[in-house]
């Protein structure tokens, strides 16, 4: 991960709002991050913290209405994805940005063969004819470790196990050699042993193909194992962000600190431990004017209810959005 290289993806002040009958939901509030070529960025945060909505906003995958990306810039190379329009985004999706979703059991279309579904982006984006797309599809299946690839092209999704289906999803996402692969909890729905296999697979593919990866997960153990940097989200905002080792060694945000406390040992069987923190997730009914974590924060003080803390740099590439200084234990 060469520092200083131009980022493949540069997101600034992204703001996404859902307009519902019950009013607006400010799901993503001024989120900024960068992704450098070939790096793996881990994204953690409890359910509803805005991880998926952030990533889907980038490439226009949210249903609109109700979703509305209200502000921000998303630069992919020299293109601003928020300005290129639906047609422009369609040309990017599946080509420059691949997406892998959580549930492999429902993410594939049950009535088309796996071969058809892998060949679709190849024919759409790469202008391949059937024969060439087929050849490439076989290569892709072999790449993601599906044995007997040639024959399995003709099979339907229900003839594959969950882990195998997720491999197919990865093959689809990688079909056109994307610059960025976004994996939204790709292993959450799988057995522990299968999870480990998929993680190993992605590690290997990353070395082989060199794309940048955004990996969303609830599992800090996974982040520790594969990510270069980690971004902790809370209430639609970035709470803390930095190199994995640095964040794990010196967590600065009270939320990150609480999270890390709930992970006893990295090699123990993991459950969904992010929910163990006391209290309720914040309501996201308006643009936040206070720290979203204050109701659950043990260090909260008067300023936290008055002002939403901006992100401030506390180390090399390490920043935190908090009014409290973890080193002194005092307000900054």
């Amino acid at each position, binding site marked *: 991960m060469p520092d200083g290289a131009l980022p493949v993806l540069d997101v600034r002040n992204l703001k996404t709002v859902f307009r519902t009958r019950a009013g607006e939901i400010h799901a993503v509030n001024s989120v900024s991050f960068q992704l450098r070529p070939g790096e793996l960025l881990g994204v953690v945060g409890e359910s509803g913290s805005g991880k998926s909505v952030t990533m889907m906003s980038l490439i226009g*995958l949210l249903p609109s209405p109700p979703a509305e990306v209200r502000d921000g810039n998303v630069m992919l190379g020299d293109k601003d994805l928020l300005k290129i329009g639906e047609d422009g985004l369609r040309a990017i999706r*599946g080509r420059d940005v*691949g997406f892998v*979703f959580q549930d492999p059991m429902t993410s594939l*279309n049950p009535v088309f063969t796996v071969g058809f579904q892998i060949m679709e982006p190849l024919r759409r984006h790469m202008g391949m004819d059937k024969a060439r797309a087929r050849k490439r599809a076989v290569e892709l299946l072999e790449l993601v470790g599906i044995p007997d690839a040639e024959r399995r092209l003709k099979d339907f999704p229900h003839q594959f196990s969950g882990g195998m289906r997720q491999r197919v999803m990865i093959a689809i996402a990688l079909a056109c050699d994307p610059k960025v692969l976004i994996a939204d909890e790709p292993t959450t729905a799988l057995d522990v042993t299968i999870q480990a296999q998929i993680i190993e697979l992605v590690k290997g593919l990353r070395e082989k193909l060199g794309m940048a990866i955004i990996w969303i997960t609830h599992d800090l153990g996974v982040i520790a194992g594969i990510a270069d940097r980690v971004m902790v989200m809370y209430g639609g905002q970035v709470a803390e962000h930095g190199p994995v080792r640095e964040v794990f060694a010196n967590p600065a945000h009270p939320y990150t600190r609480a999270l890390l406390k709930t992970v006893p040992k990295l090699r123990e069987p993991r459950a969904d431990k992010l929910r163990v923190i006391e209290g309720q997730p914040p309501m996201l009914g308006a643009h936040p004017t206070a720290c979203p974590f204050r109701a659950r924060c043990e260090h909260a003080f008067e300023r936290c209810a008055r002002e939403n803390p901006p992100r401030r740099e506390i180390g090399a590439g390490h920043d935190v959005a908090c009014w409290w200084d973890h080193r002194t234990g005092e307000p900054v």
Partner: protein
Amino acid sequence: MFTYTLRRLAFAVPTVLVISLIVFLMLDMAPGDPTGSLPLTIPLEVREQIRQALGLGDPVLVRYFKWLHMMVIIEPSHMLANATGWNIAIEGPRILSWQTRSPVGDIIVQRIPQTLWVVGLGYLFGILIAVPIGVISAYKQYSWFDQTGTFISMVGFSVPTFFTGVVFILIFSVWLGWFPSMYDTTHRVRDWDSFLFQVRQIAMPVAVLALFNASQISRFMRASMLDNLNQDYVRTARAKGLMERTVLLVHVLRNSMIPVVTVIAIGIPTVFTGAIITEQIFRVNGLGDALIRAIYVSDWPMVQTITFIFAILIVLFNLIADVLYGILDPRIRYE
């Protein structure tokens, strides 16, 4: 797929047999000599033929098999021979209509084309209208198009065809005089003008049936599309950068059609029976009309035969629906 079809077929055959037994017993269990209630005008020799055809005097089971033989072999062979002109009719005792004294198969063969044209076109147009409406309604849920469509199909579905039929006659025949109110079955299409006349006289009954069928099918189509539009695989299709048209008309529609096709197939026989009323209103002398007349004059063999035909149609189209389901849904096909 082949064993799947065979298995379905294995269920269908006993069903048909049970139905045939019930239909047979319907007449056989009736008290007294069935020929006793025949009009006195029937000559003695015809009366005797009828007795023979009924096999009176034999044990029930023997009578049943004789009747079954006539019903599923002899009559159909004559009907086919009649319809195609091939010489495949099988000789043997026929089931005679008490009213006309000619074999039921011969009468039915004359009635089927009218019913098929009117009912068939009504259903076909219904489907052709319903599918696009259902697709657009679902895709643009709650738009004015969807709201209007929902309203019209609610009306079309809840108002019975005899009412729409009468309203159509009133508006388009009586007031506007665009279409004839009665269907002339003797009309033959020979040239352009007679073809136009045929179109005009068939337009209203077809429209009434098409409206009714379209109302029902478009609701199904819409519901099925909505179900599928929320599925994860749709998001995957969009994440691949496919055109919205492809997402909708390839990925979503292909899945949504599975239950709709099944409903359409199962609905075909009920359309036949349902069209009885429409046939009455527009005086189309089809199968439904034959059934109503036969009931009026207690022509039981005719009633039996048409009932049996309807029953067979129901079983047959259920079978077809099952097979179509298997063809369309790989999860069933490969089970």
